[in-house]
């Protein structure tokens, strides 16, 4: 019986048992409350996007998290732990210092039939960033992503003036009845929106006035990455997409329906 109930008496058994029991109950509910409070704070602090990426990245297979330096062959078998945010990466900074980037290739490169124009930087989420003269940057889908999406059924772009952040949601697209969240490659404020027909999707005023591009792939790095990406797509599909060494043009129709989600997830780094 409990204290206060008729006939109750304290015994060591009661003390130990009820003590343990209440401790456990308290720990369980305090833990739950702690998680709730922290979640509430994070939510209020608008950290949801960052958390989403952090969680998604954490759940990506190790192979999908390969370091850019491992892709280029500079290092062996390195897995990124920082959510592809090389700006925070000491190794990246060190490597950049040790081996300054080589001169850009003379002409647009190409990997497995995917063109990689030189005038832009690439994000691991298959977007590109092109700095414009007016200080803004243009953001678009790279060719693999474009071909994969074909003409999206629907696109929902952020309104001008909306802040977006690296690896947060850039915009959303729908195709074949399933949605795709495109990772934003830059921090900044949306200045203008384009669309699939325009060849670009967003114009962004970079945060702090200038583009910090350390986390973006340079065109020379993009080719091995893209080859790896094509390989991944093929793994997901379980068969080759190449048509005589060149990727099929009409990728969005070539992917079988049951693999569509998986392919999109692989390409756009989603869970």
């Amino acid at each position, binding site marked *: *019986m*409990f204290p206060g*109930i008729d006939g109750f008496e304290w*015994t060591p*058994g*009661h003390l*130990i*048992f*009820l003590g343990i*029991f209440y401790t*456990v*109950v308290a*720990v*369980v509910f305090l*833990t*739950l409350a*702690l*998680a*709730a409070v*922290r*979640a509430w704070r*994070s*939510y209020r602090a608008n*950290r*949801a*996007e960052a*958390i*989403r990426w*952090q*969680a998604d990245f954490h*759940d990506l*297979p*190790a*192979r999908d998290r390969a370091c850019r330096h491992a892709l280029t062959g500079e290092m062996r078998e390195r897995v990124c732990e920082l959510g592809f945010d090389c700006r925070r990466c000491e190794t990246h900074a060190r490597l950049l210092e040790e081996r300054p980037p080589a001169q850009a290739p003379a002409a647009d490169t190409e990997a497995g039939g995917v063109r990689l124009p030189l005038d832009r930087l690439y994000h691991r989420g298959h977007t590109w960033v092109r700095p414009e003269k007016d200080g803004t940057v243009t953001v678009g889908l790279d060719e693999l992503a474009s071909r994969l999406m074909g003409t999206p059924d629907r696109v929902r772009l952020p309104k001008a003036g909306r802040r977006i952040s690296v690896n947060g949601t850039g915009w959303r697209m729908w195709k074949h*009845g*399933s*949605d795709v969240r495109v990772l934003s490659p830059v921090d900044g404020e949306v200045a203008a929106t384009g669309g699939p027909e325009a060849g670009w999707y967003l114009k962004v005023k970079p945060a702090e006035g200038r583009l910090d591009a350390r986390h973006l792939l340079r065109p020379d790095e993009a080719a091995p990455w893209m080859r790896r990406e094509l390989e*991944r797509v*093929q*793994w*997901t599909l*379980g*068969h080759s997409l190449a048509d005589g060494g060149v990727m099929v043009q009409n990728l969005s129709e070539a992917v079988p329906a*049951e*693999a569509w*989600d*998986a392919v*999109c*997830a*692989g390409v756009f780094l*989603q*869970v």
Partner: protein
Amino acid sequence: MDRALISRGVRRCSPRQFLLWLVPWAALAAFGAYSAGLCLVRGLNQTNMDNRFAFGLWIFLDLTVIALGAGAFFTGFLLYILKRHELKAVINSAVVIGFVCYSGAVVVLMVDVGQPLRAWFTFWHPNVHSMLTEVTFCITCYLTVLAIEYLPILLKNRKIRQVPSFLVFEFELHKVMYVLAGVGTFLSFFHQGSLGGLYGVLRGRPFAFREGFAIWPSTFFLFILSAAAAGPAFILLTTWLVSKISRKRLVKLEVMAELGRISGVLLIVYVLAKAVDTLVWINETAPATGFAAHQFYAWRPFGTWILFAEIVVFGLAPALVLLDEKKRQRTGWLVGAAVLVCSGIGLNRFVLTIQTLALPTLPFDAFLSYTPSWQEVGTFLAVIAYGVLVYSLSFRYLPLFPQERELAEVPRVSGD
């Protein structure tokens, strides 16, 4: 709509096929719910239990599923406390299995007691000396913990996690999971033990009675060990089964082998402890209560073969298989051994619950048998159906196996 709920990167069968799979189980669950309803409305006279067989199929079921559900706490313990990260591949599945087993057991317990409306009496007037009080407290607490552990998995559903607040909550919850895993481990150790103690303390049932340490009889510790051994084996088994049914690779063989190894190590310890315990019981405990141990096995079909089966066939044999590095690399051996381990745990719980009650104590008593009624079997099946339903839905809509996506991407040799 259905597709939007399925995690990206994994393939699931068509909704129609899934529905076809669910229908028989749902029918079984409905039948079971009807059986259980009869027992609740008309009373326990619907069962074939009686004053002598005060416990029957249901208690056997409870003890067994809770032992099999031990994978949840033990995997959690290994992953979060001992940092065996490779077990991350099965932790979600383990949590769902644990939740299913425990909630099923609690539901059946509610049907099993004569006055479910008074279930809360145990919390209000607890007798701290009763093993059942310990069990009740721990199981309810642990079921709460399991529900909290299940919550993040649920929140990880593709559609649900699109809601930012849920996403954030899931993330934060995940970060404190080690606390819950710790609490869960603590609770599980106690209630798995108390379930063993439940029978071990029965001074009036010399077949079950054991001496022990402090307030706990030896079965307390044996149950912890055996449950810890059976839990991983059951996860291994279910993973393999799900993999076979869904025709997908879900976890890497190393993970399976690791589960097998853990099970094997614990099992060999258990078998040794059980053997020592049995010897002590035969030579000390039983004679002290006025019974020679061989008398307990004088009734067919409950002969000494049960002891042999329990310790050697379902104990030592799978333990040796699982401890063999080479055999662990073969799914056949792994699964075979896991089946033996899980059956062994069932047999052990059966012996403790059913044989104990079947054996006479009074000198002019008879050996009794008992056949469960269809209502009991129905309720029993409902728990299994409920488990399959919850697990199937979880497997379809929640990311239970993080490695699945990765394994699905591995290039295949032929166009499969």
